[in-house]
């Protein structure tokens, strides 16, 4: 029971990170129907910017942990959002109306480009840092095993829940969210009714990238290390989460993220940690084959 509880706590933390990335996939898919393959790299860049931000904070002598976290959070969100905006502008917008696979191939190109750009600029070795939240709280002890929840895990949950609530509100109740949903349903009609479609799509990428930056920062704080390759696996797993929850659906992405976190942690905890990535890939394949619309998604009807 104690072991189970501890695994559950860890799984919820990991699931929060996946859910934040998955939102970016699901929103972009919802609005322009493409898989933003480079989204994992955006997450990675968010991690790097957070690392550098924490180091700058340390260099400037900002030692109050909450201040540093908020500063770095804003910094990472803002500057990673520029990446999201630029990727859409340079690599995807010129391809609207091209053949179907063109944006995906372009996205793979962006992914390779960003990975190697960061490797060139920052080196290939993993970088350590960002573990500034320490300590925790022992919930209960059983079977000679302490079930602990760290302050960091609580921070991650709080930030994730707050962002998701804020984000859901943004989509549900603001003019921007309305435009976004309108573009999702019918881009041409929305533009006829005065919605600036280009701007809305850009903002979708900006929001997705900002959330991925938060995920990158959480990842850095949780594992204490980033390297140029973390985006690939995390990206695929988050994409799996988006597909599992039903791609295009926001609550689906959140649910899917949590489920993938649960599955991965429990698989590693109870079966074998070597095959935990295989489990994630296998779920991706199985969901796509047997239920491509996911848990909460709507089935897609192809029209001629």
């Amino acid at each position, binding site marked *: 029971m104690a072991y189970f509880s501890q695994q559950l706590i860890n799984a919820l933390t990991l699931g929060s990170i996946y859910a934040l990335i998955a939102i970016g996939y699901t929103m972009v898919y919802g609005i322009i129907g*493409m*898989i933003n393959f480079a989204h994992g790299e955006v997450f990675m*860049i968010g991690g*790097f*910017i957070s*690392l*550098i931000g924490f*180091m*700058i904070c340390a*260099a400037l002598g900002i030692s109050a942990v909450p201040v540093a976290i908020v500063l770095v959070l804003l910094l990472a969100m803002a*500057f990673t959002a*520029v*990446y999201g*905006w*630029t990727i859409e502008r*340079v*690599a995807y917008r*010129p*391809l609207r109306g*091209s*053949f*179907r*696979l*063109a*944006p*995906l*191939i*372009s996205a*793979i*190109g962006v992914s*390779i*480009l960003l*990975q*190697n*750009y960061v490797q*060139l*600029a*920052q*080196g290939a*070795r993993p*970088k*350590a*840092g960002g573990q500034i939240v320490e300590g925790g709280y022992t919930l209960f002890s059983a079977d000679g095993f302490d079930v602990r929840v760290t302050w960091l895990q609580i921070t991650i949950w709080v930030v994730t829940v707050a962002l998701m609530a804020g984000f859901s509100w943004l989509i549900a109740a603001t003019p921007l969210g309305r435009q976004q949903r309108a573009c999702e349903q019918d881009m041409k009609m929305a533009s006829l009714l005065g919605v600036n479609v280009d701007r809305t799509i850009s903002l979708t990428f900006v929001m997705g990238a900002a959330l991925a930056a938060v995920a990158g920062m959480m990842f850095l704080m949780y594992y204490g290390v980033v390297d140029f390759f973390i985006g*690939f696996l995390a990206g*695929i797993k988050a*994409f799996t989460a988006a*597909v599992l929850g039903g791609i295009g659906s926001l609550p689906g992405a959140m649910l899917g993220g949590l489920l993938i976190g649960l599955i991965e942690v429990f698989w590693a905890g109870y079966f074998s940690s*070597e*095959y935990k*990535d*295989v489990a994630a*890939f*296998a779920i*991706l*394949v199985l969901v*796509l*084959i047997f239920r*491509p619309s996911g848990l909460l998604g709507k089935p897609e009807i*192809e029209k*001629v």
Partner: protein
Amino acid sequence: MDARLPPMIKDSALTALVAAALGVFIVGFKTIDVGTGGPVFDYQLVDLAIAVVTIFFGRLGLQLASVGLKWPAFVLGIALGAVGAAPLKLPSTFLHWFIVLAGIVIILRTIWPWANEAMAKARHSPRGANYGRNFVKFFGAGLLVAAVLMPFMPFADQKTMDLAVLILTYVMLGWGLNIVVGLAGLLDLGYVAFYAVGAYAYALLSTQHGLGFWTVLPLAGMMAAAFGLVLGFPVLRLRGDYLAIVTLGFGEIIRLVLLNWVDLSNGPAGIGGIPGPTLFGAVFAETAPAGKTTFAEMAGIPFSANQRLIYLYYIILLLALVTNLFTQRVRRLPVGRAWEALREDETACKALGINPTNTKLTAFTVGAMFAGFAGSFFAAKQRFISPESFTFIESAIILAIVVLGGMGSQIGVVLAAVLLIGLPEWFRDLGAYRMVVFGLAMVLIMAFRPRGLIAHREPSVRLHPVRAGP
């Protein structure tokens, strides 16, 4: 002063600003590890500033060229090139290259419309059209003759031959993937998985059961094809981009299984001591193992390390040509036509009674088979394989070759393989930038020439034959 200038300057300044925002943390603050106290900064803000200024002028030059102010753009391009090439003390050689490249891009952009117009005019003149058709016809033949004669050229030393074998391996993989991506229009991101199956099939059968290369080659192809069939069967009814992700998933699953199933594959340590291919039982080595003869003894010539390489070269050339010939022939058969039709419009194909799943499955399986052949050649050439060689990036490189060459164009794949594999191997210094250029090339190709570098592609089948030019 031209009224068009201020908005251009504003736009260039914005571009430079975005570039600065992109680079400020990742490039400006390089983290390096010293000792144990975690990373420290190695500031590169000056480099960044120079790059941003270059981007400003680069963007300005492109804008000038695009509104037709050719001479100012041209002068700006020359000036940037001169600044980059000048012996200034810049913080890194990369910046020199960066500035020179910016200048070259502007100059190319300036002369692009002229060159394009001249090309179009030449292509549309009757002589030009004839010439173009003949060129395509003879270029392939010429390339083939050159490839066959290549090992006997005076410049064919060990390094060149090694590179040639490597390029041909990628040409074969590109041609194999071209069947799946170019003809059938299925984006396969896990192609390397079948390459791995072929490689491990040969490695295991030869080291553990003593089978020879020529025995295993068809087996490896069949095994890879069987994998393709089994994996393809459930997934091929998926839509294009889902299919791509599922194939990526399968590719990674196979690699992870090879990595972790130590009893079968020896895990990350890999399999070594794989025997090379033999020629009528003769081995290519200085001294033969017991009961075998060496090629040098059999042929009665002195031993040289090059013989093995030349032999490998001809094997992969033959395998690649078989792949090419197969593709050329099958494109004229009903199944090949069905592939191309399916690529263009799946719904119409269904209406015409083509079974999309079966048709896709044949393309997928055949593509996998050729990857299996190539894989078993790879194992025989390297004599050591490990899961390291079969990562996603390998699939991406093969895909980049196909995309760059122009999906469906056979000669384009050859050129792209030479360009993407040959050039970086030749200029080793560029190695670090190679993958960046790969990624950039994929993006640019999709934006500017989605049909590939060889933009012109003849349809395999025409309703009415083209009349020859007068």
